[in-house]
């Protein structure tokens, strides 16, 4: 009887999963029937679906990578993240060598670490990183949807804010911003984020390791400096540290030994990497597909003769919401927070709040209709892909937030949005996509994230202790 019920639920879940997939297929065909050039946008959709499926399958959340090390001393997700970085960097090297890379380095400065720390603090309270919150939304978790909405509106408000916010930035940044020859409608000396961008970030340099050493566009620079030195070597060091500090003690106990030979240490490292097969497989899959995503978008750009999706939108007759450069946000690879900021900014714009008179939307990313926001559809694809996987594994469950979890989702989401904008990206855009393409600034962001998560776990533990001490429904924890 129990087996029959389980089979019925499994079949029902699989049918619903199939329904979600058919919905994406039907939507894709509808878009292509309108204009075949929407293929460019659909690449984002389908890579999003793939990311969502892998994320849910491996319970792959980069928040867990830094948080669980301090919260419960579990290195599972940190190991999975390192596997994904290694694989992505190898595929990224192949893509770069083939001439289809769409990657741009981030500016290196103190803002990267500060942004990472604020973001890392926030993720402890929201229970997921930007991608993690999307895939958990696909599992039916409305608390995670609240996190996504909070990140979206927080960013839109942060990049548009002016007034007392402007007193947060030094006069030297205002002077530097004023010296830039920018269109008058942007008023770059007003709005703290514009001043921060034009007066500080634009004065910094961003480069891959190969570019720093003068080996850009060479095989040696791409393979040795960008991939081996900037990605694989740090990954190897971090895996050894994770093994030594978080896994070896348990491995010794389980093997019944007090000392290990070098061969046994290597076997222990392997055991750590494969201890969660789901997470390891997801890391491999995400690493490979993240690289392929960049290749496919790069090849399509060459095929259509464009540098940015905005050019294609203009050619198709869609001109609303483009930036002053007639561009829209179109990274060409896995990215999360900027398109979420666009969602928030677009809604605010519809409500009559002008959010286009700033550098972030007005000059760089535009505010396209969400139905024409290609990276935005990648985020929606992640939700749908995760829903497919969760339904087929009978793990989908509608969950509404309580006051407590909603408070954490909103406050944590605001902090994540603030951190992502100051750090110029989240754990994907400012870390995962950067280090794998040879940009060392991503390690600085991760370092900031680790510090923020450590402080966040300390604060969260104090709150938990207080909450548990007033719990009257059972025993004290």
């Amino acid at each position, binding site marked *: 009887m129990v087996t029959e019920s*389980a089979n019925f*639920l499994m079949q029902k879940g699989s049918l619903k999963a199939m329904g979600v997939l058919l919905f994406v297929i039907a939507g894709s065909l509808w878009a292509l029937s309108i204009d075949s050039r929407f293929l460019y946008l659909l690449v984002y959709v389908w890579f999003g679906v793939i990311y969502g499926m892998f994320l*849910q399958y491996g*319970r792959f*959340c980069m*928040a*867990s990578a830094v*948080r*669980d090390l301090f*919260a*419960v*001393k*579990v*290195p*599972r*997700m940190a190991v999975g993240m390192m596997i994904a970085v290694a694989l992505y960097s190898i595929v990224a090297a192949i893509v770069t060598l083939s001439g289809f890379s769409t990657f741009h380095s981030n500016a290196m400065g103190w803002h990267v670490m500060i942004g990472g720390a604020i973001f890392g603090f926030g993720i*402890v309270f929201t*229970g*997921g990183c930007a991608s*993690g919150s999307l895939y*958990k939304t696909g*599992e*039916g*978790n409305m*608390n*995670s949807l609240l996190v996504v909405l909070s990140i979206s509106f927080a960013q839109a408000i942060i990049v548009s804010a002016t007034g007392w916010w402007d007193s947060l930035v030094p006069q030297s940044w205002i002077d530097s911003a004023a010296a830039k020859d920018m269109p008058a409608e942007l008023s770059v000396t007003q709005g703290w984020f514009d001043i921060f961008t034009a007066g500080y970030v634009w004065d910094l340099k961003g480069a891959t390791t190969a570019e720093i050493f003068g080996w850009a566009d060479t095989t040696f620079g791409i393979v040795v400096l960008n991939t081996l030195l900037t990605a694989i070597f740090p990954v190897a060091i971090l895996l050894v540290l994770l093994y030594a500090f*978080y*896994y070896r*003690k*348990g491995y010794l*106990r*389980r093997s019944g030994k007090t000392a290990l030979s070098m061969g046994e240490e290597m076997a222990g490292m392997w055991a750590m990497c494969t*201890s*969660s097969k*789901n*997470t390891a497989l997801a890391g491999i899959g995400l690493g490979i597909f993240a690289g392929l995503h960049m290749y496919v978008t790069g090849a399509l750009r060459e095929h259509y003769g464009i540098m940015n999706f905005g050019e294609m939108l203009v050619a198709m007759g869609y001109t609303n919401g483009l930036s002053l450069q007639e561009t829209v946000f179109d990274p060409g690879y896995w990215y999360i927070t900027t398109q979420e900021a666009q969602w928030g900014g677009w809604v605010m714009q519809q409500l009559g709040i002008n959010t286009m008179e700033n550098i972030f939307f007005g000059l760089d990313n535009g505010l396209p209709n969400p139905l024409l926001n290609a990276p935005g559809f990648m985020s929606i694809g992640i939700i749908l892909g995760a829903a497919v996987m*969760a339904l087929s594994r*009978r*793990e*989908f*469950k509608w*969950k509404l937030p*309580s006051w407590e*979890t909603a408070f954490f989702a909103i406050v944590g989401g605001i902090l994540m949005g603030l951190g992502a904008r100051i750090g110029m990206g989240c754990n994907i855009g400012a870390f995962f996509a950067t280090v794998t393409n040879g940009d060392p600034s991503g390690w600085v962001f991760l370092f900031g994230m680790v510090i923020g998560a450590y402080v966040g*776990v300390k604060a*969260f*533990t104090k709150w*938990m202790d207080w*909450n*548990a001490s007033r*719990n009257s*429904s*059972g*025993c*004290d*924890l």
Partner: protein
Amino acid sequence: MAMSFNKTADGEWKLDVCGYTCPHPQMYTKKALQKLESGDVLTLVFDNPSSGESIMAMCDAEGNDLVDRQEGSGSFIWKIRKA
């Protein structure tokens, strides 16, 4: 929705963290296991799938036995015997 932790019988405990996302379930589980005596069994009820992976790794690292796993419709009931 609220976390509940109860003693259900001699040497048997129940922790219900349904409705919570990360990191609540794994952190509450860790604290609950610290309360238990060696050999005690904790029945853990949760509905955040990703917490399961971390709890499993935590049990593995500390030598606690995951003696029973029931899963379905997005909910999980696990029994953990403390080492």
